[in-house]
């Protein structure tokens, strides 16, 4: 997106490079974990797992090595906020990793960078070199004796599923990017079997501000359960698409106003794996406890055909499933075929109901988050746009022949 200076709440504010790392090394591990817990920071990659818990579990794991992985795979359709952070605020991301290393006792971190972002590689590596010079990476960081940490950037190979943390680790290890069985979780057995933190770019970027200003300050934004701010990647039918930093709890209506969206019919919250809301639901809040999202907001106006929107999503999943487990590998194909039947008007309601049941099975029986969330748009679009899809005729968006 445009490089202009952004106005924001937390992430898009001024930051003194190195300040958080310098402060962190004067704190104990417990102090840092305490601040994170106070801040109630939750993962920004989509699942919303409490970051302090993840770090605590990794810190408590007994092992001779531990790793920090920054998940910069950003593969969810409609998401581009991590790109902005990496381009404009790399100091926040990298320092978040350094602080994580300090907290759990890791000496090495990886940034797993989406293949398409390789154009950033040079500038990011230059930035890391600069950090090494400034003693924000390397040995005895910020003067703290015995605290060593370095960061390496690895390029992904373009599979959406490699954003899933265990598939990402497989890919880092040089294997086919397929999700692992859990438990054990990466916090106990991650990269090469060592305890590993995998955090989203934005999660890590939030850490330096929390260290500098405290957990309590962080909670002044957002809701009780969703504290702080969130970056939203807004795309689709609106005047001002882009990345916005907003407090959690913002309603969809408020967001639509802000981005200049008119005549909005549907909002897909959370990318292809998220849910699609209709006008009646635009009063809902963007928050973990209501409409949760890793940041992707796609806006569709009244001219869009929802069945086409859905078909697009399902085609995406049919292709991007890693193909390991039965419900996801075959299930997504069946859902897509169902959508095509609806499009052609060759469906029966009985069969669509069978597919809805199947979709529910996929949500609970698939091996990883991809298969568990791929039916979300299928179920929500068929339910929330039932009229348009099954009952409308001749209104320009019909698909029933």
């Amino acid at each position, binding site marked *: 997106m445009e490089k202009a200076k952004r106005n924001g709440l937390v992430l898009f504010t001024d930051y003194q490079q190195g300040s958080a790392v310098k402060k962190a090394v004067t704190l104990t591990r417990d102090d840092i974990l305490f601040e994170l817990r106070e801040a109630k920071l939750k993962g920004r990659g989509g699942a919303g797992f409490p970051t302090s818990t993840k770090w605590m579990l990794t810190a408590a794991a007994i092992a001779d090595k531990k790793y920090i992985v920054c998940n910069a795979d950003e593969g969810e359709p409609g998401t581009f906020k991590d790109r902005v952070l990496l381009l404009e605020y790399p100091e926040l991301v990298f320092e978040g990793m350094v602080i994580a290393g300090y907290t759990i006792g890791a000496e090495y971190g990886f940034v797993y960078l989406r293949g398409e972002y390789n154009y950033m590689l040079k500038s990011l590596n230059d930035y890391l070199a600069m950090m090494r010079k400034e003693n924000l990476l390397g040995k005895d960081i910020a003067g703290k004796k015995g605290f060593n940490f370095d960061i390496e950037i690895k390029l992904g190979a373009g*599979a959406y*599923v490699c954003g899933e943390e*265990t598939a990402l680790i*497989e890919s880092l*290890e*040089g*294997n*086919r990017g*397929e*999700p*692992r*069985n859990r*438990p*054990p979780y990466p916090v106990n*057995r991650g990269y*090469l*079997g060592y305890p590993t933190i995998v955090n989203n770019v934005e999660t890590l970027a939030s850490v330096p501000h929390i260290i500098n200003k405290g957990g309590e300050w962080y909670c002044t934004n957002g809701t009780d359960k969703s504290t702080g701010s969130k970056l939203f990647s807004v795309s689709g039918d609106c005047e001002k698409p882009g990345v916005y930093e907003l407090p959690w709890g913002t309603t969809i209506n408020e967001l639509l106003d802000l981005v200049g969206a008119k005549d909005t019919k549907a909002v897909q919250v959370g990318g292809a794996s998220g849910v699609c809301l209709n006008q009646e639901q635009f009063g809902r809040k963007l928050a973990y406890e209501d409409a949760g999202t890793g940041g992707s907001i796609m806006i569709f106006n009244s001219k869009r055909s929802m069945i086409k929107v859905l078909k697009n999503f399902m085609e995406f*999943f*049919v*292709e*991007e*499933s*890693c*193909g*390991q*487990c*039965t*419900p996801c*590998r*075959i*299930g*997504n*194909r*069946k859902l897509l075929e169902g959508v095509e039947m609806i499009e052609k008007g060759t469906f029966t309601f009985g069969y669509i109901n*069978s597919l809805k*049941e*199947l979709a529910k*099975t996929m*949500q*609970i*029986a*698939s*091996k990883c988050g991809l298969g*568990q969330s791929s039916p979300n748009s299928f179920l929500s679009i068929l339910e929330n746009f039932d009229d348009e899809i099954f009952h409308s005729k001749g209104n320009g968006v019909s698909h029933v022949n």
Partner: protein
Amino acid sequence: MSTNNNNHRAPVSQKPLKVPKPQDTTTIGSMISIEINEKKFSVPFGTTILEACRDNQIYVPSLCHHEDLCIAGVCRICVVEVEGMKTLQASCAFPITQQIKVKTTSERVRRARRHIIDLMLSEHYGECYSCVRNKNCELQNLAGEYGVDGFTFGHPEKPVFEIDRSSYSVMRDMNKCVLCRRCVRTCIDIQEVGVLEAVERGDKTKISTFFDRPLNDVICINCGQCINRCPTGALFTNDPSDEIWAAIDDPKKHVVIQTAPSPRAAIGEEFGMPAGKSYTRELNTALRRIGFDKVFDTNYSADLTIMEEGTELLLRLKKKLVDKDDSVKLPQFTSCSPGWVKFIEHFYPEYLDYLSTAKSPQQMFGAITKTFYAQESGVNPEDIVTVAVMPCSAKKFECNRPEMTDSGFKDVDYGLTTRELAKMIKEAGLHLPELPKSDFDDPFGEASGAGLIFGATGGVMEAALRTAYELVTGREVPFENLRIEACRGFEGIKQASVKLENVKTEWKFLEGVDFKFVVAHGTANARKVMEMLKAGELNDVHFIEIMACPGGCIGGGGQPIPTSPEIRKLRAKAIYEEEESLPIRKSHENPHIAYIYEKFLTDGPCGHISHKLLHTHYTKRGDFIV
């Protein structure tokens, strides 16, 4: 380009992630109490939910899970509810490390299972009645058990993949594949060959070979272990039974069959009998009733192998120790497992000189049948058809090796597996367990017990030791009832030694030698042995037995399905029990062996005639396929 990569063979996700079960379950913390279907149980820490259920007689279905293999967690048929977790959990992959409450048949679970079966069937092209696995198929069973009464999500009308019939041994019909990946794990983990791999993703995922080449064009060692672990009819052997029937029906042909030791210890399973009982003599009757003209015992040529291979070893030792000939390669490796032979040809071609030049018992028998037997019986060798009943799929490849024609004909015409023979017996209207017993035919007749134990890992070594030790010292091996326990059991790699003392004068150079041997089974273990050899750790070892299949031939790729550590143990037990009941238990004491050396192989073991007929050479294949 190389077709295999030794590093990173098995993705970590597919390596066992189980917490090891405690040895001593009485120590505090080693047991954990859980609730399954509202009943309380105490299970060892780290047990998977699936194991915990099965150990307590609660049946949970599985498909991608296999006792011999690491966890995959991909089919999802075994899902159960774990209280407090939003999603269902794959019970085969879930280690119990805290107190949990499990439900195995809730409404959500039952529906998920049926959906999963429906989905698999929607991609499965095949008709049970024409399938090799009809009545012994895990997919068919699941469909039967979980109330599948129609194709909810459709059913393919025509095949998508061409059947790969390129291999002499293993055929692949990917239209029946359910992508459980057991074959992949077998080939990578148990065999460390790595021919099969899941390629592509999404709904295009399939099991394939290097660049999708046919199986005869990749480094497959033909062991058939993948077949034995495939839950469906997607993998099967190249069945020659129609040709064999035709030969039997042809009055001009004299059809001779030899039966290896392992099939008889397992074939009962094909007739619904529990594992662990041999049907040697019932089998003889069955074969005669089917119409074979002669029924011979492969153990006879196993005895012959011991004579040839043992002599070869002693000659190598003499050359090395007495003649100080450093070009002689030691340790000597056994060569009777064709899977292992192909393995070393591909992966360690620079070590082929370590391999005994002795042919396998199957091939020796073929060569002898079409020469000595033809001569003795007056049958024109051109009219003889030799069939070998083997536990093995690689034997099919072996009998088709171009060099295996030393009799002037194809030495062995057909390799027939235990499973394929069972079908022939059924087709002949016979129920094996009920048949009367009968003996093997002359001139080879009864063989020794030493030949019989070839069927289990360590058996060749034990048989060789019984003969070599006695040859060298003039005394029986110093073990109770001739049982050389160091050779027995299922440890992956066994190492032991026997001291040679008070040797006969002609073997003086062996006085005081600690005869060291190694026994390994499964080519993953073979690879370890080869790496040890490369690292110089086996320099003082004299003899190494390697069998390509886990457990040895009793676990061969042509044996009844299913297989498991327990089943292989029972088959081995059947063999060892049968052998103790035999009157002759040392190869060199087999009178028929003495007879052939007197009448036919007149210049003795490793002499000219036996070199021509009973020894062979190998091909440097490497991991490059041209």
